[in-house]
Each structure stands twice: as C-alpha cells, then as structure tokens.
C-alpha cells in the first residue's frame, strides 16, 4: 500500500489568462495588437507541443509531529517548525513532484541564447504555470481517492526552500519519490533539473 504513484502524461488545459498575467499583462493598461497577440498565442501552442508534464506522488503516514520536526513512517523526518505547524491536524502527508520535461527546457535555452528570446520567455512562462498546475491536478486526483476514506488534502501546499523548511530537504523528497524515474536529476545545490521541476508537501485531513 502507498506506493509511489507516477503520472506519465498529465493533461492540463492551457489557461491563457494565467500566462498573460505571469508575463505582466495588465488588463487595464496593456495594449496589444492582433498580430502580436496571434504571435504570442502561436508560441503558447508551440509550448504545449513541447511540454511533457509528468508527476509522482506518495502518501506517507505521519508518526509524530512535535511542532519542530515531522516524523514520517519509514524513518523519514523533516525538521521545520513552519512545516510542522502547517501539518498540524494532518494524519498523513502527500509528497508530490512534477516536471515540465526536458524538451521545453532545451527549447528555452536554445531560444534564450539565439535570436528568439521572446519565444523563450513565453515558453518559460507557459512551462512554469503548467508545472504548477500539475500539483492541482494531483491534488484533485488524490482527493477523489481520499473522499472515499472521508479524508481530503489541505488546500495549501508547502515546498522546500520556504521559511525554515530548507532546500536541502529536496534531496530527501527526490529520493522518496525516486524522481530519477521521471528523468529528473538533482544538482549539488539541491535544484531539480530540468529547471521546470518542482516538489511540494500537502497534508491529509479527516472529514468528520
């Protein structure tokens, strides 16, 4: 029970308004003509063809939460007051990882160093938004399963690198989820590669 679940092909509909916003579009001030808009949205479509959204997640029981340290089954522990506080009331955690894949990153790097930085920046924004949305996707997936157990995931998530939940914990998360199976590697400074790869922790709470 509670094996790592891998999602080899995550489908996320493109939410254009979110990408526009990420790129700094302001509906009250920004002016963009039809030609520029078409060009941008062509880039959105191109980005979609390059994305390889994948995810991994694992449910793990919380054995102890002493407000400074979270101890999970399997001799796993995270030292972080903020994480411990965030997980107060949770009986389990869901550890998640997601990636936008190598192809889009290769294209972003190529565009950034050649003559189409505009496209690179748009691809970067699309990849960032889409990989974030992978978490929402996984949360919805697990909530369907959890509701049958009268449980659900916390609405918020927590990631290594925030507050006192140090980035070095990303190594532990990487190992727990065996993210190498999604073609993700971890740098010496605990950064996931390809760049558009992320991890997070959510709590599982009871529905009374």
């Amino acid at each position, binding site marked *: *029970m509670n094996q790592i679940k891998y999602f080899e*092909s995550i489908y996320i509909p493109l939410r254009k308004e979110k990408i526009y916003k990420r790129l700094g579009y302001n509906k009250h001030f920004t002016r963009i003509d039809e030609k*520029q808009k078409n060009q941008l949205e062509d880039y959105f479509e191109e980005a979609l063809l390059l994305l390889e959204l994948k995810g991994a997640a694992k449910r793990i029981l919380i054995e102890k939460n002493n407000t400074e340290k979270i101890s999970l089954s399997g001799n796993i522990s995270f030292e972080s007051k903020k994480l411990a506080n965030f997980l107060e009331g949770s009986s389990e955690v869901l550890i998640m990882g997601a990636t936008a894949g190598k192809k889009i990153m290769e294209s972003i790097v190529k565009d*950034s160093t050649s003559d*189409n930085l505009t496209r690179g920046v748009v691809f970067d924004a699309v990849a960032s938004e889409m990989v974030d949305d992978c978490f929402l996707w996984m949360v919805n997936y697990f909530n*369907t399963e959890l509701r049958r157990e009268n449980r659900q995931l916390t609405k918020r998530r927590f990631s290594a690198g925030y507050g006192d939940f140090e980035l070095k914990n990303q190594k532990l998360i990487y190992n727990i989820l065996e993210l190498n199976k999604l073609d993700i590697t971890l740098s*010496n*400074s605990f950064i996931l590669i390809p760049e558009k790869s992320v991890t997070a922790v959510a709590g599982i709470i009871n529905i009374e």
Partner: protein
Amino acid sequence: MDTKRKILNIIKKRILILDGATGTELQKRGYPGGICPEKWTIDHPDVLSSIYSDYCKAGSDIVFTSTFGANRLKLSEYNISDVVGTNKKLASLAKKAVTKNTFVAGDIGPTGHFIEPFGNIKFEEAVNIFKEQVKGLLEGGVDLFVIETMMDIQEARAALIAVKELTDSFTMVTMTFEKDGRTLNGTNPAAALITLQSLGADAFGCNCSTGPLGMLPFIESMKPLATIPLIAKPNAGLPKLLKGKTVFEMSPKDFAQSTKNIASAGANILGGCCGTTPKHIAHLEKILKNKKPQMPLKKSISALSSSKKSFILTENDPLKIIGERINPTGKKALQEELLNGKTSLIRSFAREQKEKGASLLDVNVGVPDIDEVKVLKDTINMLSIITDLPLVLDSSNIKALEKALRIYPGRALINSISGEKEKIEKLLPIAAKYGAMFILLPLTDKEIPATAIKRTKIIQSIYGHAKKLGFTKQDIVVDCLVMTVSSDPRSAIETLDTISWCRKTFKTKTVIGLSNVSFGMPQRKWINASFLSLAASRGLNMAIANPSLETFMNIKMASDVLLNKDPDASKYIQHFTDSKPLDKKEALVSTPEKNVSAAILEGNREEITEFISKALSTITPEELVNTYMIPSITKVGDLFEKKEYFLPQLIASAETMKKGFNYLQPLLKKSQKTNKSSSVILLATVRGDIHDIGKNIVALMLKNHGFKVIDLGKDVSTETILNKIRDNKPSIVGLSALMTTTMVNMKEVITQARKKGFKCHFIVGGAVVTNSYAKSIGAQYAKDGVEVVKAAKILIKNT
C-alpha cells in the same frame, strides 16, 4: 423478462434510485482504514449486509457491490492475488443481503493508473484486468454492471469493452468531472457521453467530485446529445470547514431537494456518492417518487468525439473541413518520417490544420512496406494527446482500422466503407462493435458508378447492410464521389446531383474530396473553388481539403454566409480580420526612417533590416541610430514601465533593435566617426543557481543601449566572477539569483570583490531579491531589464 429489459422498463416509468456511499459508511461502521477494504468486508459480512439493508429500506433500486478496488492492480498492493474469488465473494454477499426487488450492480472502479496514450498501462492489459474482475462478478451473480468514478476516458472504454466482450448485461458508466467541467484528463461530459454511448454503454453519467449543484450543468450539457439514460451520483456537497472540523455540507433534505433539479434536467438514474448516507437516499427516493422521467431525446446522433471534446454534425451548420494533410500520398518527407517512426511533420500538420479551421483530421499513414497496423495505432495515440480534434481514420487495411478503433479514445469517423464484399463482411461489423461513424463510399467490387442514379442504388444497398447491424442514417456520411471533369464533362454534375439526393431524399450527411474534380486542368484552384461553391449550395456538409489553401477557405466562408449558415456573418468577418490584419505601418507611417521606429515599437523583427536598408538611402547610419532607433527603444522602456507594454512586447522590441544594430554595425564602423567607447558590464547568475532567462533579458537590454556585455552564464562560481572582474575591469557587475538559497552567494561575491579592492558597482536582481537585501550587501537593486538600464546609465554617469 431479463434484467436488462426490467431496468429499461422501470426507467420509462420513473427515476431509478441508486445507493449512497459505501466507503464512508464502512468507516462509520468499523472499517479502520489503511487495510484492504475488500478483504475487510469479506471478513465482516454483517457490516456490509447492514449497509445494503439500510439502502434497500431507504428505497435503492440498485446497490453496488463492494468491489470498487477489487482489480488486480489495487488488490496486489495488499498482496491479494485471487481477483476472481474476491469479486465472486463480494457479489454473492450483496446478492444475499438485498431484497428481491433490488438489483445488484457489479462495481468496477479505476485501477489507479492511466491507460495508454495517457499512461503507462497498455490498453489490452487494462481490458484483461477488467475482464478478470467482470468474470468474478458474473460468477457471484450480479444483475448488471457499473463502471464508476472514472477519470480517464480510455480506462472507462477499456472497462466497458471488457464487460461487453463477456456479457450483454445492462452496463452503466459514470465519470468524475472536476469543477471546470472536465475529467482530470480533459474530457468534457459531452465528449465522454458521445464516446461511451456509441461504444455500447446502456446509461452514462457522472459521480463524485462535486455536489448536486455542481453536477447540474454536466447533465444539462449532455441531455440534448444523449441516446441513453443519464446518471447522476453526486457527493453530499463539498467538504467545508465548520467549527474547526471538515464536514460534507449537505443535509439529507438539502441533498434531495438539490438533486431533484438534476432529475428535472433529464437525469434518469440518481443516487449519492461520498458523504451521502441511507438517510440521504431515503429523502431522495421520497422527493422523486412521483417525478416523471425524461427519456432520451434522440434515438441516434451524428456526433464524433476526441478524448477532449465532441463534434456534433447538424444540417444547417457551416460547411465543415476535414483536414487532409496527414496523408503521405505525394509527400516524400512525410513518407520518410513515417518509415522512420518520426512524428514531427504529423504534429505540425495537426496543429496547422486546426489553426486554419479544420473541424476533423483525416489520418492516413499508408506507405508501401510500412507496418500500418502499428504505425496507425501509434499515430492515433500521439494525436489523441496533442489535438482535441476528432479523427477520421483513413485506411484500406481492415486490421489497421480495427486496432485503431479499439484504442481510439473517442468516437471516430471511418474513411471509408464501400460496397466491396470485404468491407461489408468484415469492416462494417467492426465499425458497429466500436460504435464508429463511417463515410459511405458508393462503389462496389464491380464498378465505380458514373451516374448519380447508380450511386444512389449502391448507397441504399450499403445502408441496408449497415442497418442490420444497428446503424442509422445519423451514423453515416455519404461520399458523393468526385471524378475528374477533364475526362468526363458530366462528372461534376453527377456529384452535385448525388449531394442533392442525399440531402433531400435520403436525408443523410454528405462529404466530398474536392480537388479530384480539377485534375488535368490548368489553374485548378478556380475549378475547385467554383465546385465547392456549387456543392455547398446543394447542401454539402463536409469537404476533405487542405484548410491552409486561402482561396478554398475564402470561398467556404463566403458560401456559408450566402447559404445562411453564418447568419450574422460573424465567422466570415472574423476570418478576414484574422487573415488580413490592418497594416498599421502602411496606414500611419510614411517615411523609411519612421518605419524603422515603428518596427522597433512593434517588435517587427522580420522587416527591420529591409526598413533600415531603405532608410539609409536618405540618412546616415549614426543619424538613424541616434534620432530614430535609440528614442524608439527608450520609448518601449517607458511603455513597459507604464504597463502599456508587457514582457513579450519589451523583448520583441529589444530583439528587433538588436537585429537592426547588428545590421548597422559594419556601416557604423565604415563611417569612421568617433564612437564613445562602451562601458563594460559583467553579468552572471551566481553559484548554485541555474535560472538565467531573466539575466539573458537584462543582457539584451543593456546591449541595445550601447553597453558592452560580458555574460558569464549561470551557476557561476565566486572565483570565476572575481577572476573575470580582475581581467575585464567592468564598470558594473550584474548578479542574478532566483532562489533564497542561492541569493546568499551574491553577498559572497561582493564581499570578496571588496576585499580584493575591486571598485566596480554591483546591481543585483532576481525573483526573491529585494531592495533592502541589495542595500544590505552593498549593491543596487533593479527589478527588471528596464530598471537595470536606467541604473547602469546613472552609475556610469556618476562615475
């Protein structure tokens, strides 16, 4: 009377009532969680019996077996290998527990994995996994089947095929749609309905994920398209926080009242999912007792679907285009790609045709010596992920079509089924099994009929065969056969007469492959265009064509207006607005140098060098740069700061400027005028950080303003940065970091630089960097490329 007929008879008279939640009821009655629920219920039969008994008393006509997770993959997580035995025991338990008027539905839930093309479980493996479960449930004596809580249309298809290949029992399918009206894999309710009702589901609907209010629009969207009864099994509202506890929000009374609206919208089978109890079902039964059911509004429907969305073909819709480009005939590059197992051309054809207005994509991979069964399957799998357009499966290889239909996660259109013996005997039953629509091609083994009269006879003959297999006229589209007008002057007229007959007499939809009509003629596009217009006027519904052909699409758009298929001409106007944007430069700009300014302002990289070239006939390179280009890029920065421009516009303009500069560079040198030497700026993303797109933008902006930029790249060690400062003596060093953990390395660089006595200025930036942090480490902060340029200019000026 068999169970299937009994259920259908009840549905005609009243709303059929399902049970409520089982999982949450088991927990209330002792299931501790963390162990296999199926095993626990087998070990505690009295608990399960009490739940069934309560639902029977509450008025459930159908209860589900407690086998939601009793498939090989889920049971193996608890080291249980006897799938058939487990399902049989649980089905028997349910049969024993219910009253004689209550049916037991064998419950099939998701495996927890996604099926190809959306996941790593092979389609046939999924079918076999479900067959194992179906076998056990049948041995346990279930009356019908329910495939429920499906998130993946392909998994729902695999389960339905598994059931249908083992039994003719009444089979319900329900999927889980998220708040945005799609499954997690992006299938909307209408697409799921079209796919599964054509594949043989006896009832379809939705369960879980949302409460009755959220489910109402799903049922409303499906009712006009449904040929089978609709199901709704909502949760007891959504969980919400109440006095520190998370609870399902709806009381039994509120749930029943709200669910009644779903019955009014046309659902025929209703029950409850998570959070509902026997009390919820009792209230529901009471409130729906005298509610008159709304039977399906249609017996059949001309509709196709992809895994994402549906395509409804109606008589008065604008002419639809089936994109013809994914076909290797006459395309060497595509032939080679297919033989080498590559897909990039197919991907781009799919994208381009959708953009240009195709409603469906024809897919033909027929190349000599190719393994068409495999290649068509792989291509369908790939296209199912990258496009939301339904596919037209185009092959003369029956085996390839059979395999493609089996794995296609939607309702496909077959191109085509003719009156040839093999097609009638082999392909037609396959099309019927998978519920596909097909293009009826009116030719036989013996002849390709030249006249409309002969064609109509063959059409009726093929339809006669199809009707016996359950097809209706809604399921077919007639290919009216287009022959070459250069070899038979009457051929176009015969095609047009066939279209008229199909429309007026036979009352079926029509399609033509347009371009054959002009074969051998000069200036073919005019023949094709005229023919399209004439065919449209006879009532043609679809054309197989290349939507990238401008003349063709223009005629289509115009014909739709003239035939009142685009009543307010909105599509026509949109088409010409999109394809011919107002050229603002031509309208507003009159001189070559002003064109250069406009190109920078608009980010027009394509034309900047042409404009510069023209401008240089009247102006020197230096004047062009100083009077037009620099002020333009400065204005772009101002517009960006005022938020009138956003990032892509800023960068496009900067890239245009860069391209213009590069073009002018040799000419500026040639003019031998003194040029103030550029200030050197060193840029780097600090050690440990691999994020550098922001730094790249800064580099581009600085270069455009005349700075000499040395970009050291990303993840650059402190030592390297210090060495480069020593060697290049930059006026300014720009450091970038995206993360809090790497941001500290900026401080290290600056501290070490000061220790070594380097006098350069530092500008820092990046997502997590703030003004106060910059100050604390002795640097200046800039939030974006425009600010870096401003800051750099000030620092240089004050140096």
